[in-house]
Each structure stands twice: as C-alpha cells, then as structure tokens.
C-alpha cells in the first residue's frame, strides 16, 4: 500500500512557520499603531527629529535585544519564544512564569516536554495580563479626571526620577562596581553643563559604563 499522500509536518516545523507568520503580523500591528495615529489625525513628526529621539534609546536597547534573544530563546522553546517576544514583559513575567511551570511539571527546558509546558505557561500568563489590563483600563477610564487633577500633576511630572531612583538602587546593589564610573561621569557633566539633554547623556553614560566594565572584567575586578 502507498503511504498517505498528505505529508504531515512535524510540530517543530509548523511552530516555526506559524510563529514567523504571527511575528510578522505583530510587527505590522505594532508599527501600524503610530501609522494609524499619523493617518487618522494628519500628524507626521519630522523624520530628522524623530531619528534624534530614537537613536539614544536604540543604542542601549538593541544590543540588549540581541542578548535577550540569545538567552531566552533556548529557555522558552520555540512556541514560547514566538509568543513571549510578541506579548513582552519577558524578564519580569514570562521567563519566571515559564521556568516555574517547567520546574513544577518536572520537565527540562530545551526538551519536547519543556517546549509544551513553556508554551502553555506563557500563553496562560499573557491571557492573565490581558484580562488584568483590559479590566484595569476600563475602570481607570472613569478615573481620568482624577488622574489629570492639579494636585496629581507634580506626581506625574516626576515620573522619571521615581522610576530611575528605584531602578538605580536595584542595579547599584546588583553590582555597585559597574555603577561608579557612569554615576561619576553624570555628576561631573551635570556640574559642568547642567542643561544637557538625555539624548546625549544616554550614549555617553552607556559607552563609559560598558568600556569601564569591560576593562574591569578583563582585569578580574568584577
């Protein structure tokens, strides 16, 4: 008897094909959001200024993206990777959720069983975040007048020091030796030229921080 004419693709092959299709759709949707805003309201930011605004953060976050892709992909498995990188919040939510689920099920990452448990875990985690966000946003839309009250204005005006004060403590306590050089540079720059924009401070801070960290690492000081 002849073998069945229809060739069944393995899970692994279909997950990469489907994953790529979903990922391309996600790119179109995420880039479609600003496009829709520009088209609907007829506002197009000047490209030069936009690039000037984009470059400093891209310099820091794109290399981090490379490390994250190389680190998390083997941990999360194929399905988990395609799903996790679309739904975001990886290091603070998806990765710990998937690892906890694999541990509890007694399966290892990078195995067939690990792949399944990780995908189910990341899917469930995304659904929960979605439910919480949709419910919260619906409730908060009634609170908008409160959020925009004059009393709360200084609170929102100080969002950045609030985030970076807390993040600073996290990263300094993780490895204080790395933080000395960039902090000293910033205090020096602030005293010399107090009005420098973050667009210049970020690349300066990142280059000095990485350079000094590399030197210290090579000399076994870290």
């Amino acid at each position, binding site marked *: 008897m002849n073998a069945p004419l229809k060739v069944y693709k393995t899970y692994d092959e279909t997950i990469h094909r489907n994953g790529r299709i979903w990922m391309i759709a*996600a790119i179109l*949707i*995420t*880039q479609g959001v600003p496009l829709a*805003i520009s088209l609907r309201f007829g506002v197009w930011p000047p490209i030069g*200024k*936009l690039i000037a*605004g*984009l470059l400093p953060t891209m310099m*820091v*976050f794109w290399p981090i993206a490379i490390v994250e892709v*190389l*680190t998390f*992909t083997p941990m999360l498995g194929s*399905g988990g990777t395609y799903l996790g*990188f*679309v*739904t*975001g*919040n990886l290091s*603070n939510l998806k990765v710990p959720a998937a690892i906890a689920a694999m541990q*509890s099920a007694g399966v290892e990452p990078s195995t067939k069983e690990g792949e*399944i*448990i990780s*995908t*189910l875990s990341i*899917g*469930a*985690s*995304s659904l929960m*975040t*979605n439910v*919480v966000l949709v419910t*919260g946003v619906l409730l*908060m839309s009634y609170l908008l007048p409160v*959020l925009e009250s004059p*009393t709360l204005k200084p609170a*929102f005006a*100080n*969002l*950045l*020091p609030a*985030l*970076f*004060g*807390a*993040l*600073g403590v996290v990263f300094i*306590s993780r490895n204080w030796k790395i*933080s000395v050089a960039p*902090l000293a540079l910033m205090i020096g720059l602030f005293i010399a030229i*107090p009005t420098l*924009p*973050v*667009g210049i*401070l970020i690349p*300066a*801070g*990142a280059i000095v921080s990485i350079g000094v960290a590399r030197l210290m*690492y090579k000399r076994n000081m870290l």
Partner: protein
Amino acid sequence: MTDIRNSTFLFAIGAFVALFVTAQSLTFMVRAWKEGRRIGLTSATMKKAIIGSASFSFVPSIAILLAVLTLAGALGLPLPWIRLSVVGAITYELPAAETAAQAFGTSIKNVISDPTVFSAIAWAMSVGSVFAMILIILFAKSIQSGIHKARLKDTKWSGLLISAMFMGLISAFLGSALGGGLVSILTLLASAATMGFFGLLIKKAKLAWLENFAMPVSMISGMAVAAVFTLASSGGSL
C-alpha cells in the same frame, strides 16, 4: 481640540491589539496542548501548568497595570496600555518616550497635548521595539537547533554587559533628574529609599512575594512625595 491621547480611536486600537494577543495565545496553547497529548503529557500536568502560570501572573500583571497608570498622566491611557500589552516593558517605554519628547523640545513631565509630539512618541516607542521581533523571525529557528549556542558561551560577561548598559541609561536619567530641582531630587530619594526598604524585606525577612510590588510601589511613593511636597510648599492642604 479633541484630545488624541484618550480618543475613542485609540481605545479601539487598544481593543484590537488586546484581541490579537488573545488570539495568538489561544492558538499557540491549543497547538501545544494537542502536541502535548501526542507525546504523552497528561491533561492534568498541562492543566496544572496553565492554572499555575495564570495565578503566578496575576500579581505581576497588576504591577504592569500600575505602570500603565504612571504613564497615563502624560500620554493618556490607551497608548501605554497598547505598548505594555505587546512587546513593551516600562524600563524601555519610559526612556523611549522621554528621549523622543526631548527631541521635540518638551518632556513627558508635561501632559503631551501636541498631536505631532504625541505621534512622535508613539513612533519612537514602536519602532524602537521592533528589533527583537526581527531577530526572532530570522534566528529563532537556528538558535533552537543549536547553531548559535556557541555565541553566548561567556554568560558572565553578557550578564555584566546588560547591567553596564542599563547603568549607563539609569545614570543618564539620574543626572538629568538632578536638574529638575528639589522636588525631583526628593522624588528620586523617596523612590530609592522605598526600593531599598523593599530590598531589605525581601532579603532579610525572606518576603519574596513582595518582589513584584517593589518597583510600582517605590515609583508611586516617590510620586506621592512630589505631590505632597508641592502642595505643602504652595501652602495648600490635602
């Protein structure tokens, strides 16, 4: 003039994005469930993974909601909601929004009411986050099959590299906070002190469950100090 930030149009886009994420999650879960049965995983094991991960994710999801709330003052509700539903995380979205705002001569310290600046911030947040997705499309398959495993042999350095990059970014924003005057510095110190206190509770008192709340509560404490201090120094009362 209509407020773009909280327009029905943007809420509708938010709803569409939420539907997309739900559809993708369900599709992948159904496919994984079927494959799991095929390779011999029991329904009970898989159900446990789903319920366990959903409950595990509840508290961190509240933290993500609080991050949406903190950005809502400047950017309205829908844009932060959209950004933190797909790809985003507060540590990226906030710096991206601020550097874009500064390129246009303003800051997200203010309500972003200018449509051009608002759209520029939306572009910056979105374009900046596309890189990881492109890498996944191009390389996820080969990474999984082991071709690129050699690349990350020096895991100690790659960990340090991420810390160093973040520290460069953090120090830049800490430096610029110094220029924000007394209220900014007080906010920074209050938020840092709260985070330090959380760190002590988590490490010394072994209250690991507090970890998820450390960042949002520290931020909100800092912001509360800013509101109270400004109110008090202007002679008002609560």
